[in-house]
């Protein structure tokens, strides 16, 4: 028998308190029916004896102590799934909003997921060619990786994400699908993604979960979990290679903060709860490849760094969990360089095992190291030039500055449509390094230097 509890005992922000509930499960879903017939859903977040605290996803506006009837469902939040979800659009809680009707589920899965046993993981090695030089050469994306884009408001992270989707899709023959989760992004942004997917002719391979900026904030906490549950289903049950785009993680974290403070929890840094790290991990760690299953889940979370500050808790904690990051730089952006990837703080941790002979090219790793090392010296030369003026620099430093400019304008800068092969990218890298004197190239061994300088003379 299903009991309905009439009325509430307390309402506080997104939380409601109900007393006299027997047998409530921790984290089970509840249905709340209002007198006017509208329905809301919530989740049990705390139990104390027969008192339960419920988080209402749609917010508590309009609720009173007497106008509701609450029903416990007895199970955690589940997402109905079937192969038909491809091409569909859902709201932040996984309910269809494209007017095409409900999903007839093959299976229902718990949105919270379960941790992947490290023993059952396959170490990701298969690189994804994105056609973007700065990523392919210097922060290579690997299938099964979680590689966030650290951006700031107004920079071209959406364009970059779309370009990765388009170009990675084209170059690869495998069964590919995209799961897109919007958390607190503007309507235009969601629309831009939808249009771009249409243009790339992949709309029938995209599942969208939209929690836009005017949608209920608490719903945002569930949105990435719904998206990842769909992704896991498509990857591990249907054997597809899934690319998950989560944007914007900053809004997500703010929703977590809002929820935490309404629960009266002790805040950590900048008011974010102490468990933000674990909370992020429960999202990011759902990327990967599992032994014996065909598919994979690759994540590209996008986050806008508040005030472009990479030490802010959101990018900071993200960076500790994800396997590297692609950092965008405002000064490159304002110089008109696209994609404005800031090379030095960008990193792909899985890169070293997914490149080189048999994957990309033998000289990839040393070449990438040399580009990093040289470009970091460019920064020193620039700093010096800003003090003593460019004219006073030593010839070596002047060469470095020239290299830096060429590197930014030719290598990093490539435009929205330009899709470079890995060969083109690496050759371009070699060519640019040839601007520098041979003894500056301390990361390349003799053999590489020989072939590298051969390249140069050919180029001339």
């Amino acid at each position, binding site marked *: 028998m299903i009991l309905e509890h009439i009325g509430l005992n307390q309402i506080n922000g997104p939380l409601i308190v109900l007393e006299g509930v027997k*047998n*409530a*499960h*921790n*984290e089970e879903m509840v249905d709340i029916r209002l007198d006017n017939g509208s329905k809301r859903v919530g989740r049990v977040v705390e*139990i*104390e*004896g*027969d008192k339960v605290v419920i988080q209402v996803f749609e917010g508590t506006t309009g609720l009173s102590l007497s106008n509701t009837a609450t029903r416990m469902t007895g199970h955690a939040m589940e997402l109905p799934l079937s192969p038909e979800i491809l091409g569909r659009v859902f709201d932040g809680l996984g309910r269809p909003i494209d007017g095409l009707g409900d999903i007839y589920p093959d299976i229902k899965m718990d949105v*919270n*997921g379960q*941790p*992947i*046993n*490290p*023993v*059952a*993981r*396959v*170490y990701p090695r298969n690189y994804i060619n994105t056609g973007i030089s700065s990523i392919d050469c210097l922060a290579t994306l690997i299938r*099964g990786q979680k590689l966030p884009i650290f951006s700031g408001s107004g920079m071209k992270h959406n364009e970059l994400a779309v370009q990765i989707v388009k170009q990675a899709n084209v170059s690869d023959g495998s069964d590919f699908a995209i799961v897109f989760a919007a958390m607190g992004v503007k309507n235009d942004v969601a629309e831009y993604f939808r249009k771009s997917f249409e243009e790339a002719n992949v709309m029938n391979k995209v599942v969208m979960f939209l929690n836009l900026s005017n949608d209920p904030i608490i719903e945002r906490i569930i949105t990435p979990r719904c998206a990842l549950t769909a992704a896991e289903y498509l990857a*591990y049950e249907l054997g597809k290679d899934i690319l998950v785009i989560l944007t914007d993680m900053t809004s997500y974290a703010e929703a977590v903060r809002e929820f935490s403070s309404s629960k009266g929890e*002790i*805040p*950590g*840094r900048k008011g974010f709860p*102490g*468990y933000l*790290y*674990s909370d992020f*991990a429960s999202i*990011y*760690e759902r990327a990967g490849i599992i032994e014996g*299953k065909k598919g994979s889940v690759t994540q590209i979370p996008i986050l806008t760094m508040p005030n472009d500050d990479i*030490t*802010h*808790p959101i990018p900071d904690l993200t*960076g*500790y*969990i994800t396997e590297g990051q692609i950092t965008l730089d405002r000064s490159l952006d304002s110089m008109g360089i696209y994609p404005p990837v800031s090379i*030095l*703080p960008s*990193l792909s*941790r899985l890169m*070293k095992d997914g490149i080189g002979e048999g994957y990309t090219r033998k000289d990839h*790793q040393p070449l990438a190291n040399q580009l*990093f*090392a040289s470009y*970091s010296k460019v920064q020193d030369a620039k*700093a010096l030039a800003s*003090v*003593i003026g460019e004219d*006073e*620099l*030593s010839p070596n430093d002047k060469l470095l500055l020239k290299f830096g400019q060429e590197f930014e304008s030719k290598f990093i800068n490539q435009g929205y449509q330009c899709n470079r092969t890995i060969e083109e990218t690496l050759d371009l890298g070699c060519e640019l390094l040839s601007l520098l004197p041979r*003894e500056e190239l*301390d*990361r390349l*061994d*003799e053999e590489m230097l020989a072939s590298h300088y051969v390249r140069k003379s050919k180029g001339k």
Partner: protein
Amino acid sequence: MEKTYNIYSINGPVITIKGKTDLSMMEMVYVGEEKLAGEVILIDNDKTTIQVYEETAGLRAGEPIYATGSPLTITLGPGLMSNIYDGIERPLAMIKQQSGAFIKKGSLIPGLDEQKEWDVTVTAQVGDKLSGGQIYAHCPETSAITHFCILSPEFSGEVVEVKPSGKYRVNDTVLKLKDNKGIIHDITLCQKWPIRIPRPVKERMSSDKPLITGQRILDTLFPVAKGGAAAIPGGFGTGKTMTQHQLAKWCDADIIIYVGCGERGNEMTQVLQEFGELIDPKTGKPMTERTILIANTSNMPVAAREASIYTGVTLAEYYRDMGYHTAMMADSSSRWAEALREISGRLEEMPADEGFPAYLPSRLSDFYERAGYMNTLCDKEGSITLIGAVSPQGGDFSEPVTQNTKRFTRCFWALDKSLAYARHYPAINWTESYSEYLNSLAPWYTENVSPKFMRHRDRIASILQKESDLMEIVKLIGSDVLPDDQKLILEIARVIRVGFLQQNAFHDIDTYVPLDKQYKMIRIILYLYKQCSKIIEQQIPISQIKALGLFDKAVQLKYQIPNDDYSGFDAFKEEIDAALTKFNIA
């Protein structure tokens, strides 16, 4: 039969029981119908608080809680080696067999394989008086490690019965022991030990032998002693994990305990794979034969993360008690501290610095004090070296975990973001890092490497220090205006930085460098410096020396001279002499 209680409230991983209970502090309990593992952390007159090591979703108020009467213990015995466990010693490979690729709740799996038979040689004889910590049997655990069965420290007495040597399982009785009250105990191959209590030893000895890691910046500039404690702090992407991996692979401890505490799943998979393929240079056997992994990744339950560090160090102590030198890598202790903070927050304790509980420093010191070079109860020498990675928020070393870790460790290997950006690995900053073991290790280096080793090491350190002072000037006015002797310092410092400190973990020769070669490298660099300064004194411009290309050759030496044939150093010395003679004549 132990008592049962009922759940009253649930808040994340923290649950309470209403009313008075007989539970004791730190007692292990099983929570709910699924029997999730938990531990009592707070007892009040009217409620008892328990932290649960697993996900609590789905629990209901009123579900039973089963007391066990003992604190959180782990089982110690043969079969630990080469295994991979979660934070409370549940074998992940078995969990995978039982519940598939995802970790399900309430998996009650014993830590040791109870069916496997070990080839046991029983060494104790009837009539022997055994006290805790003494060896009564041994068996080959892996091809690299012999497992000595040591009597649990809580027992002592006279052996009244022994089984013949042969094949036994971990829970089979191999001898019977009569204690001084006349009670007879069955002694098996395994024992239980509470993870939060340090295992006893006979006495603590001074740590005067270095842990050789094959990493030049560590062995030469900032060595850690066997039995010491070291901290590796660094922001994300500075190579903490990479450094930990290198240490685990190459350091000369007999046994490695690698604790992945709240880190990435893929990283643990990488460790598993890599260690399986790598061959230990000392034993010629795969690295996994001497390694135990503990993987409590960031998305696994937070309370088990808190326990994982203690599980790791207890395993290390167990092998130390057999007379092995163990090294434990904890990656990362910040995640452990965050787990403390998270649980403390749920208990609504008064927070101290940055929300961390006020007992953070005492917990850290308890942990790091479990390192040490010990004389064990069975009169062998064993040690535990603890190497903890610290992940400071925003890369800011003034945060509480880094600061407190600094107080309780004597070796500080500070990782530097700008070095990492320049892909200078290991990105250990040589001006911020320090080792307090230098003095106690000096006699060892003098005896085993060279009497001049420490002097040379100090010269290298002082050149680097001078360089960093000079760089202040260079940053303002450029290097062109410096006098030639200072330019020479910059050049030599570059050779030291690139040719010595920078080490390529992926290069066959460079990934591990024996101490002798390290010494020869610094000696040749200092020789080059000495010869060049003589020439500079004769007012010959440095540009002429630079044109000889000696500095660039010195940088490449690390890749060219193999680890087993040092003749290249002499050849290079002759090359230096030959190249510089023309100036001497002038």
